[in-house]
């Protein structure tokens, strides 16, 4: 099985770190992974993104032309990457940032979670990406929540480890949403 995922949003929404977290957790589960950030002009205009591959087999090209899943954390990313998703794939979006009218217009399958709103309720909008990851895990069972927890400990600097219990709470809320 191979999942090809694009994660996109404004700079600061944690789209690159969400991708890093997924591939790190994937590596911990013994899967083949790659992560490629956008570093060119697309960083501007709210569509900062990363290409993420999590696979049972060796990863060929790390560069995606299409994705199974597009995680859109804002409207410009939804507009841009809606057609990037294969017909049998789906879009996962932050419904705090993408309106339901917009979502109803697409032919693609869409899952939503009001990640930013929920993150603010939890005390910090920076948790939005963890809600999204929780929802992704709920839909796909792509990785185990324990792997995400372990990845958080490895990826975050030690001074931020005190946040991990809250992040795990956000993850579980995403999982059961």
């Amino acid at each position, binding site marked *: 099985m191979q999942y090809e995922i694009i994660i996109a949003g404004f700079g600061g929404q944690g789209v690159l770190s969400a991708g890093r977290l997924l591939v790190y957790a994937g*590596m911990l589960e013994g899967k083949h992974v790659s*992560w*490629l*950030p956008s570093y*060119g002009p697309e960083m501007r205009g709210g569509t900062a993104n990363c290409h993420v591959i999590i696979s049972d087999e060796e990863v*060929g*090209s*790390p*560069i995606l032309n299409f994705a199974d899943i597009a995680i859109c954390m804002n409207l410009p990313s939804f507009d841009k990457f809606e057609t990037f998703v294969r017909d049998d794939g789906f879009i996962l979006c932050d419904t705090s940032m993408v309106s339901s009218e917009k979502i109803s217009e697409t032919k693609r399958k869409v899952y939503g979670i009001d990640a930013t709103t929920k993150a603010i309720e939890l005390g910090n909008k920076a948790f939005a990406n963890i809600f999204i990851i929780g929802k992704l895990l709920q839909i796909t069972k792509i990785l185990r929540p324990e792997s995400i927890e372990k990845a958080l400990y490895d990826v975050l600097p030690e001074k931020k480890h005190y946040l991990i219990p809250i992040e795990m709470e956000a993850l579980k809320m995403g999982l059961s949403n």
Partner: protein
Amino acid sequence: MSEKVLMKGNDVIAEACIRAGCLHYFGYPITPQTEISHYLAKRLPELGGTFLQAESEIAAINMVYGASAVGARVMTSSSSPGISLKQEGFSYIAGAELPAVVIDVVRCGPGLGGILPGQCDYFQVTKGGGHGDYRNIVLAPNSVQELYELTVESFNLADKYRMLCMVMADGSMGQMMEAVQFKDKEDITVYDKPWATNGMGNRGHSNFITSVNVNPDELEKTNLRLQAKYRLVEKNEIRYEEINCENADIIVVSYGTTSRIIKNVIKKAKKIGINVGLFRPITLWPYPYEALAKHTDKVKAFLSVELSAGQMIEDVRLAVNGKSNCYFYGRMGGHIPAQQELLDEIIRILKKEDK
């Protein structure tokens, strides 16, 4: 072997530099390889080494010349326009027979071009943008793991032959993260450097390093010695990878990032009954001419796929020597060919060849 870690290609290059025992780095920042400088700026002073951000690429490569002349393992890194600036230094390093490692994380040109990935430096790294009859060893990794292994190896090769060894990656390889597994102990060969200008000591004579020699007989002799060395490199150091080349209808020749796309294309093609082979040169110089030539009788055609307007295709043609048709497919400006795009091209070529 240690545990797998997830790292960015550029960070891995920097870590490999340290692991290879190179504690001296001179460079000038340029996207998409600046993380190499970040990493080394932090680590090298901690290890008692030298990190120096020079005033320009030209200054940096001449600092490399100086450090190498006193016997140190030394590296610089840059991206395409910066590599163009360093070319004069490469020629001097070749003339003075100094070992050094240069990393080129290629972006797209010409001119200042763009910061997205390209392979359009093939000519300037393999054929030399500098003057004179010289060669550089050029290694072309296609994964973060290989970036690590080949960067370490490049220091051994540079010291072994007293010449410049380059690692050519493209922007996406520098920027991407993959799992990498470092060795517990690096395979480092330490070479004596009795030629180094590091103080006379008990040697009884002073060493002198230069590339200038106005005596035609002596300069020709130097050139012949260099050429003999290059023939030795051609004999010993050619590396390549072949995938599915036996019974292939068509062989795609590709290196770096594009070779990974071909691996996907091979699987796609198999589903519709087409046998695609991948021939991946790992050394771009010395080029694996003979190994590639062995396939000329068995396949219908060769296709060189590059992120350029067609540069390596010239070496493919030299290898094939007119015995098969050679085609080219490339993208420029930072575009990367899609799997389907390449498969369509392969189908088009095979239809043409079957006529």
